[in-house]
């Protein structure tokens, strides 16, 4: 039996790319339920999702990717789902990989599986500054955990129920990457990377934009350090 899988799609001003993403998820995973978390959009993201017949939780203000995901976790818990898949609305993540992503979690081999661009050569090219950041934080995670996680910023992940139950109460609000992975591993959750190919976004912008480029490394380094030294919740 397939366990109850909820695909949570955090969406901020994604009315353009959302319909296609929803259709793709439905086509590749008809057995999964979808929840769109509209993170304070100014466009018709919620309307687009609703007309596709997908439940929408609408944030009155922008809470960030992590905040939206946490809302998805809360919803999944109250509705009794077993696994949550996090998938971007912008079309970067190919739902064709859902099966591969879910497999280790369903089999109980790990608690969080991460769709990774870097486990094997998947032809992903990023600008140098992003690549530097990714290298830095995968190094930070390797230092903290003693084992590598290559794609720390991947927003294509599957979370087992135990993780969801913990994370619905405590979750990093802006970017759930390196610090989150360190915190999860320290709580004894098993992480595993699954190779995926990611596409170019069809619309919208990366969350990692200009002004944040200076703040982000600082915040993430500090948060990683804190995740390492503070007592797991």
């Amino acid at each position, binding site marked *: 039996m397939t366990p109850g899988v909820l695909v949570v799609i955090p969406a901020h001003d994604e009315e353009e790319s959302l319909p296609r993403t929803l259709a793709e998820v439905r086509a590749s995973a008809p057995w999964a*339920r979808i929840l769109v*978390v509209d993170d304070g959009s100014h466009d018709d993201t919620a309307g687009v999702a609703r007309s596709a017949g997908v*439940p*929408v*939780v*609408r*944030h*009155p*203000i922008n*809470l960030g990717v992590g*905040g939206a995901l*946490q*809302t998805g976790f*809360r*919803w999944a818990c*109250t*509705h*009794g789902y077993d696994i949550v898949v996090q998938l971007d609305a912008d079309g970067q993540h190919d739902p064709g990989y859902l099966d591969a992503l879910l497999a280790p979690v369903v089999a109980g081999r790990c608690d969080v599986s991460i769709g990774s661009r870097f486990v094997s050569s998947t032809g992903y090219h990023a600008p140098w500054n992003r690549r530097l950041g990714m290298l830095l934080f995968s190094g930070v995670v390797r230092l903290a955990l003693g084992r590598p996680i290559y794609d720390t910023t991947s927003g294509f992940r599957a979370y087992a129920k135990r993780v969801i139950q913990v994370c619905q109460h405590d979750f990093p*609000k802006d970017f759930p990457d390196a610090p989150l992975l360190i915190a999860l591993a320290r709580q004894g959750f098993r992480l595993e990377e699954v190779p995926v190919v990611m596409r170019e976004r069809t619309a919208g912008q990366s969350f990692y934009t200009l002004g944040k480029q200076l703040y982000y490394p600082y915040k993430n380094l500090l948060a990683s350090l804190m995740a390492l030294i503070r007592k797991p919740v």
Partner: protein
Amino acid sequence: MYFLSRTQLITALGAVLLALTVLELVRRRKLSEEYSVLWVIASMVIALLGFSTRLLTWVTHTLGFLFESSTTFAFGLGFTVVMLLYHSLKQSRLTIENHALARELALLREEVEALRQGRSDLPR
């Protein structure tokens, strides 16, 4: 009572004026008691140092400041730092609470919609 300089007198009177302003703001319910505490303590300490030259001189020598005016400034600056840190803490907590409230509101709104539409996927 004697003053080392006109600045000392002005500082002392300024501190009293600040304390009175703070208390008046509390009376008018513009400032909560909680936030007034640090302000009242700060202005009282500065006023005390300003009006008692003996105390000011003693503190200055004990802490090794070169001038009495530096002592007053140091205390003022110390309070400013404490105050700012306190506000940063408060603001961080308010942000967390604010986000939690927004999340609950969003979830409830969705639940209301589900109820209205008679959907079957209600929370268990």
